[in-house]
C-alpha cells in the first residue's frame, strides 16, 4: 500500500531543497550551467522576470517545449510557473511531470480573486507571500512551500527583506497571543484560525519559506538566509549578470555559508557587473507584481 501526493511527500520535497538555490533558466544550456553550479532545482521559463517586465503584455505559462527541454537536460528537479488561478496551465504542467509548480504573480494572473485549489493536485505548489495572512491562505489552499514575493525582476532586495521580516515578526507576535486574541487576529489578517493555532504552538510555518524577488548578489542571498529564509530563488540575477557560471557558484556558496563573511567577501570579488537594479519608487502601481494577488 502506498500513497502519492500526500502532504508529507509534497512538503518533504521542499524540505530537501533547504539551504539551496533555485535558479530561473530559459533553456537547456542555462539549466546545465545551473546544475553544474550546484543549484538544487531550476525554474523553467520562457523569459526571466526582468525580460517579462521589459516585454510587457500578458505573461503566460512557458511553451511546453522549453519546459521539456529543461527536464531532459538535468537530473535535479524542474519547476515551472502557472498563472495565478489558471487551473489548466497547472494541470498541463502536472501532466508533463514537472516536479513543482510556482503559482506565480510574475505571470499575469488568470483570476484576480481566487487561487488554485492546490491540494487537489499530486504535484506540489510553491506560492508567494508578503505576510502571515497570505502565507496561511496559500497553505490552506494546499501550497507545500512558500517564498517571499519580493519585487521580481528588479534586482532590488528591499521588498523581499520586508516580506521575510513581516512574516517572521508576525509569527513572533502570534506566539505571545492568548487563544481568544488569536481569533481576532485571524479575522483581521484573513488567516485560518486553526492554522494560526498550529503556527503559534510550533513557533514556525508548517512549510519551508524561501526568499525570492530581487536577489542579485551573493551578499543578498546571505542576507535573506540570515533573516530566516530556508533557501533562495534567484531569477534574473544570474543570467542577467556578466559571468553567469561564476555568479551562480558564488550565490550557491554564499547560501550554504551565509554567516561566513570572509568567504562571502572572497566570493564577491571580480564577479563582473550584477544586473542593473530598479528603484521601487520608480515603479508604477501596475508594474508592482507583488500586488497582483492577496
Amino acid at each position: 500500500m502506498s500513497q502519492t501526493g500526500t502532504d508529507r511527500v509534497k512538503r518533504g520535497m521542499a524540505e530537501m531543497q533547504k539551504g539551496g538555490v533555485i535558479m530561473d533558466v530559459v533553456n537547456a544550456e542555462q539549466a546545465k550551467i545551473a546544475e553544474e553550479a550546484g543549484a538544487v532545482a531550476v525554474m523553467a521559463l520562457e523569459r526571466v522576470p526582468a525580460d517579462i517586465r521589459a516585454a510587457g503584455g500578458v505573461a503566460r505559462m512557458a511553451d511546453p517545449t522549453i519546459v521539456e527541454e529543461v527536464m531532459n537536460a538535468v537530473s535535479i528537479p524542474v519547476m515551472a510557473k502557472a498563472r495565478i488561478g489558471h487551473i489548466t496551465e497547472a494541470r498541463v504542467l502536472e501532466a508533463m511531470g514537472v516536479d513543482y509548480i510556482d503559482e506565480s504573480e510574475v505571470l499575469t494572473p488568470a483570476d484576480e480573486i481566487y487561487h488554485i485549489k492546490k491540494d487537489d493536485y499530486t504535484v506540489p505548489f510553491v506560492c508567494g507571500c508578503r505576510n502571515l495572512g497570505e502565507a496561511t491562505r496559500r497553505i490552506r489552499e494546499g501550497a507545500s512551500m512558500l517564498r517571499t514575493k519580493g519585487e521580481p525582476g528588479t534586482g532590488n532586495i528591499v521588498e523581499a527583506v520586508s516580506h521575510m521580516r513581516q512574516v517572521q515578526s508576525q509569527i513572533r507576535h502570534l506566539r505571545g497571543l492568548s487563544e481568544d486574541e488569536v481569533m481576532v487576529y485571524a479575522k483581521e489578517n484573513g488567516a485560518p484560525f486553526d492554522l494560526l493555532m498550529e503556527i503559534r504552538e510550533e513557533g514556525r510555518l508548517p512549510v519551508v519559506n524561501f526568499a525570492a524577488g530581487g536577489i542579485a548578489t551573493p551578499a543578498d542571498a546571505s542576507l535573506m538566509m540570515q533573516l530566516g529564509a530556508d533557501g533562495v530563488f534567484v531569477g534574473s540575477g544570474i543570467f542577467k549578470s556578466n559571468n553567469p557560471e561564476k555568479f551562480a557558484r558564488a550565490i550557491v556558496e554564499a547560501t550554504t555559508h551565509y554567516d561566513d563573511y570572509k568567504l562571502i567577501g572572497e566570493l564577491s570579488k571580480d564577479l563582473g557587473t550584477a544586473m542593473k537594479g530598479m528603484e521601487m519608487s520608480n515603479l508604477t502601481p501596475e508594474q508592482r507584481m507583488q500586488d497582483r494577488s492577496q
Partner: protein
Amino acid sequence: MTTIGVLGLQGAFREHIRSVEATGSKAIVVKRKEQLEEIDGLIIPGGESTTIRRLIDRYEFLEPIRQFGESGKPIFGTCAGLILLASEIDGSYDVHLGVMDIKVRRNAFGRQRESFEASLDIEGVADDFNAVFIRAPYIEGVGGNTKVLARYDGHIVAAQQDQYLACSFHPELTDDHRLTEHFVKMVEETNKTLAL
C-alpha cells in the same frame, strides 16, 4: 557521550538533528571537515545529491569522510546520502564516496508526482515503519558483505554493510525514530570497540 554529526551542506539536516536528539544523543551540524574530529558517527542527509557533491568537493570533504568511514566510524546515508555512499551509480554517473558495496539507480521511482509514502518492515529494526520516498533512489544490487534490510515492491530500499547504513527514504521526516535509534546504537557499539 556519543556525538552524531549531520553533514549540513544542503538539505534536510535539521530534521536529522531533531531525530538524533529525540533518541537522547547529542547531534551537531557539520559544515567544516575539521568537525569530523568531534563526532563518533556521521549522517549524510537527503537533499540534492549533485548539489551536496559539488559542496563536498569545494570544501574538500570527500577524502576526510572516506577516512572517517575507513577508521571504522559509522556513516548513515539517507536518500541523497545513499547515492553518495554507493560504489556504483546506474547510468555511469560519477561515483562519490564509493565506500559501500551497492549499485544504485537515481530517481528510480520516477519524478516528484510519483513520490510516495508506504509502510515497510525493516529487518531487525522496525516493523510497520512509515517510509517517505521523495524522488528516491533504490539499490539495484548489493555486494556479498552487504545485508539487505528492507525492500519495497521488490526493490532494495535499505541496507547495511558493517559500519555503513543506507536507506532510500527519509526517516527524519516522521516522528518514528527507530531507524535513527538503530544507527545511534551502531555508533555506541563502535565507540566501545574502538576504545578497547
